[in-house]
């Protein structure tokens, strides 16, 4: 994998912050569309993003029509990007974003300023660590997230523990299981606080196959141990009964959040509850020279979905450079009128103005905070625009189609409602 650091230029047409699947896809597509200077700024010594440390398949079906492991997939993406003559700057962190497309960077050579006509932000997501979950206990060694575990196992060939407990049952929690299996780590148990496994697929079978018991309705109460983890106190959410599981580590898996701190401390708008970037159906931010794409806009989707996002966003950025996007001055904010909804994306819709405007996303994507069952709808002052019944778990994708925008009044107020059944 290439690890040379190209020095960043002073100016470019499009700067892309983050060299994961979304950023690399957007960069390659923009070059193919004929944009002259496209620069990817990646803070790690290697591009490729999260897949670099997902040592298991399946990656690449959508992009390459083949199944790869994560690291192999990441290498293919980088090859493609370099073949398209994208400027790839590694070991390059963006430290602040300013109006006018100005980016402050730091590299091993020190500080640097870059000015871009358009900027795409795709800095990805990460898991919620123990601290932000306010879990009780001391701070022994052996507490990780899936991401940290995978990087240790697949990138550095090291293990932080031998018999951990895995907290969570999202798709990524099963990646944690696979990573453990790979490194001959034997998880003691997998914990899920609700009554059903969160992940959608056949992965329900996986823990059984690997001989790892799954405890449903079980919540972490306290981490035990001073130097290293010696156990975890858990509680049955139904009976309130507590017990101790002996283990030497914990993996806090999932509960993804956007890695959007750059945006939070900039002039760009983020959702105050989740930190997700506020965008319109083109991925355009509150400052129309900036776009956001990839998983940071919708924690969490697969690499393939983020790659598609990147490609789509490249087309929107291209159109924006030629003035063909819907009107940035006529944007309707979509309000959310339900405490059960964790987030929606996009959070605003730009009205097309005329028929020649480029089409954007077709759906509004939502996530719920808790298991939910009921009727979801989008309304304007003149009545219901779209509606559907849903039955969902937290962290699962829910979609609602975006209504025909040409019919919307610029003064309409849009609201998403959810009525529990």
């Amino acid at each position, binding site marked *: 994998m290439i690890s040379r650091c190209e020095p960043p230029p002073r100016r470019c047409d499009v700067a892309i912050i983050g060299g994961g699947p979304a950023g690399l896809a957007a960069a390659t597509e923009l070059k193919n569309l004929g944009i002259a200077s496209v620069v990817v700024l990646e*803070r790690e*010594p290697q591009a490729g993003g999260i897949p670099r*440390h997902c*040592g298991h398949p399946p990656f690449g079906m959508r992009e390459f029509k083949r199944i790869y*492991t994560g*690291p*192999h997939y990441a290498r293919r993406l980088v090859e493609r990007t370099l073949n398209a003559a994208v400027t790839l700057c590694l*070991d390059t*962190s963006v*430290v602040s974003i300013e109006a006018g497309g100005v980016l402050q960077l*730091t*590299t*091993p*050579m*020190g*500080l640097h300023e870059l000015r871009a006509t358009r900027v795409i932000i795709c800095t990805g997501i*990460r*898991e919620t*660590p*123990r*601290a*932000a979950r*306010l*879990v*009780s*206990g*001391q*701070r022994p*060694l052996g507490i*990780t*997230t899936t*991401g*940290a575990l995978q*990087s*240790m*196992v*697949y*990138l*550095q*060939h*090291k*293990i*932080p523990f031998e018999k951990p407990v895995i907290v969570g049952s999202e798709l990524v929690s099963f990646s944690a299981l696979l990573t453990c299996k*790979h*490194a*001959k780590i034997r998880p003691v148990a997998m914990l899920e606080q609700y009554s059903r496994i969160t992940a959608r697929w056949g992965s329900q079978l996986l823990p059984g196959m690997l001989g790892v018991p799954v405890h449903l309705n079980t919540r972490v*109460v*306290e981490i035990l141990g*001073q*130097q*290293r983890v010696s156990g975890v106190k858990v509680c049955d959410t139904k009976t309130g009964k507590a017990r101790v599981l002996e283990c030497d580590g914990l993996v806090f898996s999932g509960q993804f*959040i956007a*890695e959007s*701190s750059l945006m*939070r*401390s900039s002039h760009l708008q983020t959702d*105050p*509850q989740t*930190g997700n970037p506020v965008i319109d159906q083109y991925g355009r931010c509150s400052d129309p020279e900036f776009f956001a794409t990839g998983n940071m806009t919708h924690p969490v989707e697969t690499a393939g979905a983020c790659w598609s996002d990147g490609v789509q966003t490249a087309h929107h950025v291209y159109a924006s450079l030629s003035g063909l996007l819907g009107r940035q001055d006529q944007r309707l904010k979509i309000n959310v009128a339900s405490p059960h909804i964790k987030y929606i994306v996009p959070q605003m819709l730009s009205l097309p103005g005329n028929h020649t405007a480029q089409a954007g996303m077709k759906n509004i994507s939502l996530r719920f905070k808790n298991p939910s069952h009921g009727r979801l709808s989008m309304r304007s002052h003149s009545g219901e625009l779209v509606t559907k019944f849903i039955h969902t778990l937290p962290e699962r994708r829910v979609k609602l189609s975006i209504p025909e925008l040409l019919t919307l009044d610029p003064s309409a107020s849009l609201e998403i409602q959810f009525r529990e059944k």
Partner: protein
Amino acid sequence: MSQIDKTQVRESDSSRYDIIIVGAGLVGCAMARQFTLEGAHVLVIEKAADIIDGASKGNSAILHTGFDAPPDSVEQSCITQSYQEFIQIRKKLQLPLLKTGALVLAWSDDEADRLDGILEKAHQNGVDDAKFIGAKAILKKEPQLSDQLKAGIHVPREYVIDPWTTPFVYMLQAIENGARLKRGCEVQSGKFDGQWWKLETSQGTVQGRTVISCAGLFGDLLDQQLIGTSAFHIRPRKGQFLVYDTSAYRLLHSIILPVPNEITKGVVICRTAFGKVIVGPTAEEQESRDDASVDTAELESLREKGESIIPALKFEPVNATYAGIRPATEFKDYCIKHYTDKNYISVGGIRSTGLSAALGIAKRVYADYSASGFNHTPADKIKWPAVGQIAETQIRDWQLQGNEGIVCHCERVTRREIKAALTGKMPAASLNGLKRRTRVTMGRCQGFYCSAQLSVMTEGYFDQSISFQYGGYKDD
């Protein structure tokens, strides 16, 4: 009893010392600096793998003026003296200072009534610039505060400092000027023969003329072990904190203090030198002297408390949580006692102001020591060490050429900084030690991005390693 020999031990003598300091917390570090700069040959013994690992590892990092200390107490005089010295030496030691000022806020009429007494005490303690401030003026200064507040007192010279680099550089200066530090070394027993102390430690016997106990949470136990009595009992009092991410920093400027009660200074909200905001501490009596665990319910109540004072905190993510244990005693004041017949000085019960008072405590103890007849000749030239800069007010390594790239992205810690902290005169000996020298893994992701790299970089440096080797893995 024989006449005690008070001649100076030569520095080249590595088996005998003028002074043995037990404990390298805030107080031990400042003590080592003071005695070394006065010319004494000093050995510091610390049982933990690294320094600042007891009471001193978790505090609010406020440089107190002493405005609310009991007037004429030892504590108050140490704080006052320490404050002046800190301001004098901090530039030479490249120590940061956040000139925040503090607001003591009353949230009820009852509390507002007590402001008078607080102001009077402040003036009595020589903090003349403390003043009343009305609700309107407070909100103008700090627009994010809840408008439920009644009134307050402005204390302009209460500041925030760097809680780790400060003691670290005190100890480093002592070492660079000739002091020795043994870490991972526990004092188990000792005998005074009328001339010399012989201390039995987990790393063998050491000899010194005078022993200074700066054992913090274990001060009473060490006194018992060495001189068979102690003038105080430690009553550990835990304090938990929440750390909010960088984006919360803009929400306030001043240190927000409550009207204190008899037991505690109460929950504080302030900026940190590392660009964050903290809310805490709680005040929980406990038996354990080393269990600094956090607790979900307490943390949630801190969250609520914080949001009731600054409502916008509701939308700020919490990065980290931590707890510290105060070495409180049955007394309100510090317990500093010189047993002149035993060449033993016990510095105990430095409860909740040790960061502010450490330099003053060390000066006071030295004055007392030399008054008992010991004298040293200070070196002609004092060395002032250079340390890595980890506070946000300083120029950080990531801004400089040749930094070798960032490893910890959240806190922007470079590869060069980590290498430097693992080597040098007082290398980090544990992950916690490395954190306190560099801030590595202490940000919002808590090691999600960097712990793998870190586990490789630190291989072989720590007793307790972050990870282990396993069979091996081949991609594809």
